[in-house]
């Protein structure tokens, strides 16, 4: 999976590597590798931060407009400023519970460059005044867990973590914790519940905004792995250089996990806003074209919970703001490409099944609704669909996410884009995420659903009423 493409036939501009500079370095995960290779000197940023006031570090990050890389794209510096004033202790939590289908960028950051993450966490802890950092790593990522554990030991040994770091009066402990296999724990309040030893179920916002009332009801900053991993480069190279990458509103790079029907799937670091999906799919530097020279049917621009895009949207830039306005989201940076051989109904069912299985069960619409959606789709796939099922499906979806659901424009059909985010009757966005594939697929491929429903008579049904197909 180390295919960060290096050959550049067509691009004239050198793409800066902010977070992925050690992905191809064999010992990049060791302290030695971290300090001796890459696009900045390891732990120099920490040293620099410790010469600044915590407030100055926060300001720097705010000035850089470091957007969160977990999905919502909220500026990290602003988020840090939301910590309830004069309430201590505070905590930093690194959200490494990456489990969205199609997303695997944080895994590489944790496996290939754990020290970068550790240094970033230390800088964040220093900026907000936290004395404890929790690294929450997904349970199914043992390799990342081992690499981080080893890196933590090295960093403790070198006094980058612990008491009086590098001779200053700044002390931090970093605790490594593992998830237990629930997608929902990627949601920050559910992650906090899990850290506290409870069931991973989201808390309600309001009132439980982590910056105000987070872990143990104390101010807590939960940042994505990639967000934190940006900090060492940012501190080393400065705001001006950081802002020279990407666009004014979305500076810096994004790690994009490209998967599906492209020639070269993999994790690519791309400048935000200046790269288009077309370039991502077709450039030899990235995807290398749709697999087998086929036609693009649709793609998911930001992970399983993002509404689908279609060929009309391939020239949009990879920038959260723009993608949101066009009816989807860049989310966690997972781009899934589907070519013209893809069965839209089956793809829709497969995605909905994921959400139905991962629903935590806390609130009614998600617990009951996602499963119901999945069963209707399954029925349609099995040739047991009924003509009324599409309306039913859309209405069940509407009861989870009421009102017009975010949707990509379809000029041919006279459909305008409905911007992100969706509304919800649920506590967290998981339930509404299950609606994305349904509204996306039905809006474009209604005929495929109807085809399956109308084929009903020709599908053999076993005596138990279950199809054998």
């Amino acid at each position, binding site marked *: 999976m180390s295919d960060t493409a290096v050959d550049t036939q067509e691009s004239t501009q050198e793409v800066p590597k902010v977070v992925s500079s050690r992905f191809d370095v064999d010992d990049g995960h060791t302290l030695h590798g971290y300090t001796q290779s890459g696009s900045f000197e390891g732990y120099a940023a920490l040293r620099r931060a410790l010469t600044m006031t915590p407030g100055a570090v926060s300001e720097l990050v705010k000035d850089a407009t470091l957007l969160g890389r977990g999905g919502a794209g909220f500026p990290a510096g602003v988020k840090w400023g939301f910590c309830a004033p004069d309430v201590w202790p505070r905590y930093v939590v690194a959200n490494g519970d990456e489990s969205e289908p199609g997303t695997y960028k944080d895994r590489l950051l944790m496996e290939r460059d754990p020290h970068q993450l550790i240094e970033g966490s230390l800088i964040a802890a220093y900026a907000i005044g936290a004395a404890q950092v929790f690294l929450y790593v997904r349970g199914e990522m043992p390799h990342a867990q081992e690499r981080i554990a080893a890196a933590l030991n090295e960093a403790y040994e070198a006094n980058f973590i612990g008491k009086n770091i590098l001779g200053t009066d700044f002390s931090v402990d970093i605790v490594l914790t593992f998830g237990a296999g*629930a997608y929902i724990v990627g949601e920050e309040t559910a992650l906090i519940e899990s850290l506290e030893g409870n*069931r991973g179920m989201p808390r*309600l916002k*309001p*009132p439980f905004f982590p910056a105000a009332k987070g872990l143990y009801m104390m101010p807590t900053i939960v940042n994505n792995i990639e967000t934190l991993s940006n900090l060492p480069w940012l501190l080393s190279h400065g705001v001006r250089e950081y802002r020279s990458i990407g666009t004014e509103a979305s500076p810096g790079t994004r790690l994009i996990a490209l998967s599906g029907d492209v020639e070269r799937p993999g994790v690519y670091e791309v400048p935000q806003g200046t790269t288009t999906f077309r370039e991502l799919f077709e450039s030899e530097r990235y995807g290398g074209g749709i697999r087998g020279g086929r036609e693009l049917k649709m793609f998911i621009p930001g992970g399983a919970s993002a509404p689908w895009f279609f060929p009309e949207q391939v020239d949009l830039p990879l920038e959260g703001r723009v993608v949101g306005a066009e009816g989807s989201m860049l989310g966690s940076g997972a781009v899934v490409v589907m070519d013209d051989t893809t069965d839209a109904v089956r793809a829709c069912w497969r995605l909905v099944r994921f959400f*139905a*299985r*991962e*629903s*935590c*069960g*806390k*609130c*009614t*619409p998600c*617990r*009951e*609704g*996602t*499963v*119901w959606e999945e*069963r209707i789709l399954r*029925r349609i796939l099995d040739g047991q669909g009924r003509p009324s099922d599409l309306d*039913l499906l859309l209405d069940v979806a*509407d*009861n*989870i996410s*009421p*009102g017009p659901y975010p949707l990509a424009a379809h000029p041919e059909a006279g459909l305008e884009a409905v911007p992100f985010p969706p*509304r*919800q*009757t*649920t*506590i967290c966005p998981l339930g509404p995420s299950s609606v994305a594939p349904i509204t996306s697929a039905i809006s474009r491929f209604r005929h495929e659903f109807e085809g399956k429903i109308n084929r009903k008579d020709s599908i053999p049904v076993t005596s138990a009423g279950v199809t054998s197909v």
Partner: protein
Amino acid sequence: MRDIEITEPVEITLNGELVTAQNGELLIDACERNGSYIPRFCYHSRLTPVGMCRMCLVEVDTGRGPALQPSCMIPVSDGMGVDTESDGVAKAQDGVLEFLLANHPLDCPVCDKGGECPLQDQAYAYGPGESRFVEEKRHNEKPIPISELVLLDRERCILCDRCTRFADEVAGDPLIHFIHRGSHTEVNTFPGEPFASYFSGNTVQICPVGALTASPYRFKARPWDLEETESTCTRCSVGCRVVVESSRNKVLRLQGVDSDPVNWSWLCDKGRFGFQAGNSGNRLSRPLQRCESGELSEVGWNTALDSAASVISAAIAGRGPQSVAVLGGARLTNESAYSWAKLAKDVIGTDNVDCQLGDGLPAELVLGLPGASIDEVCEPGATVLYLGPDAKEELPILYLRLRHAADFDGVKIVEVGPTLTGLSPYAAESVTAVPGETPSVLAALLDGTSEHVEASALLRNASDLKVVIGRANLAEDEAITVQTADLIRESVPGATFLPALRRANVRGALEAGLAPGFLPGGATLAGTLPTGWQSMPAERGGGAAEILEDAANGRVDVLILLGSDPLRDFPDRSLARRALAGAKTVISIDPFVNASAEQADLVLAASMFSESAGTTTSLEGRVTALNQLVTPPGTARDDWMIAVDLADRLGADLGVETSADDLAEEMAGFSDAHVVLGDGAPVGDGVMLDISGRDLLTSAEVEVPPANAYSLRLVLNRTMYDKGTLLEESESSAGLAGESVVKLSAADAAPLGVDGSTQVKVTSEHGSVTVAATIDSRVPKGVAVMHHALGDVDAGTLLVHGDPVCDVRVEVS
């Protein structure tokens, strides 16, 4: 919804109209108060809101346009706009209801909840007529028992988190929880661990569907067939308000009423299911008289009352009125207690009367100490000195209130007692004092010389100290409690006291005059003759111990057991045995032939809870109603009727013309609280007596022998479930009593070689028992704990009344 006083009014727009709400209260309550009921399942006003069921979604506008929000999670703020009736809200609520019903079995015709089910009601009110869900529903084994009393049907469960929140937040027994996830989520216990909570019945009451049912009520009735009345639980002295429900003249269910000053809608399982004793086949339905063959056999009331009157007359004529003694009365209503006080002290003329059995607090303390109500003890920020018995075992709802106060309201509890208790995990400080040493330990805490610096500082810095005082150890002389109270009053003059009394109406019986030296209303024999009375006893009589002592020595001609069972309840068991043997005639007035009644010459069948009307007085001095719902079995009758009939046969008139209300009216002359009662039963939360205290207090000095190195000090206390008559007669609690054990600290157990279930011989100066020993981390070194009335081992034989403490030797037998 609870009534609140609006102290910080704000204006909100509710469905287009400006209304007033309390700043910060939950929107769901504010809307309901202003006439707009929002449907809900997970929200319960006594539990932390969680916003899970999503039924209460409404459109809330705080300036950024209307958005669907769960009204149970949104605090009201000024200028907020709320729409509870828009199309969007209706669609969202309909949608949630459809989701909830999708996998619900709809077995309403065979479900106990049918007819009183919020899910059913709301499906009728808001739901679609037909289901669009054609898939097969989820299936689970139904029902599964999660405790001795509670069964869980997971198919019906809508996962509202009420029972699980209750278990965790309120009861402190987080033994049920969600398992699995998504649509497979279910409530369950931990594998192999039952939901063994004293408060499990509350989960049944708050379940918004028929998922949790309790075995005593399962399939017994339909809600629309039930008759109901409000009343007061009489299984302990906390005075929880209840609704009693019956069908076909049989009580079938008790539910807690949300009484703000008392029980907040909660009940303990003993109180909730204890009504079953009334339905027991062993209830006494007719008087019994010992016939010539020595057997107790049924007689008519005339015969029974005539013979009772004649033995009493003979005793008065013989050795004088003081040869008649009345023991008990704390089970009675206020009115019955008063009628018996008047019968004993006015008509018969004896002062040998005691409503307690040497296991309570002296009348002087209860009536004399400046009182504190439960609410005052649990007031946010208060400091509480807890000197009572284990509240979790004996006064369960007081335990819940204290637990809540400590967990949520910053109340600091300093517990001083011979062992750690159920309250210890919530106490700010727990200091153990070996039996007999409470006064000296407390003196050091209060004067700042104690080694328990934090506890001492808390007590010394308390501006308004509240003291819960009671008997944590029945093997310790009550005079030590008197000494302790005296010490506190001297060191902390402003301290107020909540007496941790045991039996339901001890306070009412004491107020009525059922204690030696007392007349109704806390007056003493030195005072004036009460209005309506002809005479009063010439000389002061004795308390329970003296009465039994007299009886043992043949000085009691008639011993009347007024709903008391000294053979089981008097701590000095051998004295009780000798007394019953020594009394010339024993008359028992009781709903059951209890152990003492078996020895009686005459047993008069009494009515019990929900069979008689009147009032009762709780430990804090709150007078509340007891209402009648069913008739007593056979010819069993109210205690006051027996008193009136006996008085009549003794040539006196107790002044009752029609009902117990006449007695209540007479009592109104003695206490302000009873004035209201004279006009009929009190409604709602009842009326508080004047609890400011009376000038009755005495002091005591007790010489406690020094502990010797070879002995342990005995603590005799109670557990919630024991072999008491009412518990044994209740189908659901019979069999819940534990085995007799002696509990030792690990430090004392080790040298004896006790490892968990070793049989040991416990020997005092007065007797010895053989019992299994266990190690208990709540027992401090130097102390041995035994429980009252468990199994066949009688710890009471180790004691002699009047000894300050009881030292025992424990040896492996």
